[in-house]
């Protein structure tokens, strides 16, 4: 994986398995059984972290394998996006992390489940 190993290792606390998936020249991070914040249903699911700017204009994106129920309703504006030969879902959440690391980006996206706006 092209990402710093220590940052990838930090992600391993959040998922049962961390791997890389390539599409074109871009490397996504697959987080198998990613733990989700308390109150989410399901409590974990597979996720795909895109820690780089995409065609959607967002500096990063976290895709989920299912539509997650959370204490706050979210605008799931990406439904069944086909990436790395799987379908993914994502809600509208713009993240701009100062001094980003992979875990900081992940947590910034997950915080979308825990606040109203």
């Amino acid at each position, binding site marked *: 994986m092209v990402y710093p190993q220590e940052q990838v290792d930090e992600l391993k*606390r959040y998922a049962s398995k961390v791997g890389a998936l390539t599409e074109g020249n871009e490397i996504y991070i697959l987080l198998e059984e990613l733990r989700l914040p*308390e109150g989410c249903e399901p409590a974990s699911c597979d996720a795909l972290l895109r820690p780089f700017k995409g065609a959607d204009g967002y500096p990063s994106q976290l895709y989920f394998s299912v539509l997650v129920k959370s204490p706050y309703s979210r605008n799931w504006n990406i439904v069944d996006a086909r990436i790395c030969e799987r379908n993914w879902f994502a809600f509208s*959440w713009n993240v701009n*992390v100062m001094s980003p690391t992979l875990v900081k980006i992940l947590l910034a996206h997950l*915080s979308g489940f825990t606040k109203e706006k």
Partner: protein
Amino acid sequence: MENNEVDIFEFAQRGEDVPEARAYHVRIDGEKFRIDTAHPTGEMLLAKVGKRPCAFELIEEFVHRENDVVEPDEEVDLRKKGLKGFITAHKEIVTIFINGEPYRIERGDRTVKEILDKVNETPEGYILLEEKNGPPMPLPTDKPVRIRGCEVFHTQAQSGGSS
């Protein structure tokens, strides 16, 4: 029990001095433990019952005197006359850890704001993460956080919003 192991409770009941011994049998919350030194610290004794000073205090119980609180780093003299054992009590003001530093806070339901106040941060500027049975995870800003003592929190600058 071997000859050079003594039960301090029995000596306290008889009003006798506790002799020097290889090990001391001590009651903590009614459960008996073998202690290899006459001068354990409060923290060491609390650990015997699986408790930590960030949430619990240790109290010496005597036969004919009032109880005394033992500080975590205080050395107890197990040969002190009349000392019959120890009890533990949940503290009202407990210690939590935020970004690796200890902070004192009242036990019970606290708001995210109250916790972030400890590190001069606000919910508008920071996410509060709790490390509980796993990695640090973001906490909802509008729900109370149950504080029992020893909780571990982290903060991260707010960097996301609905778009």
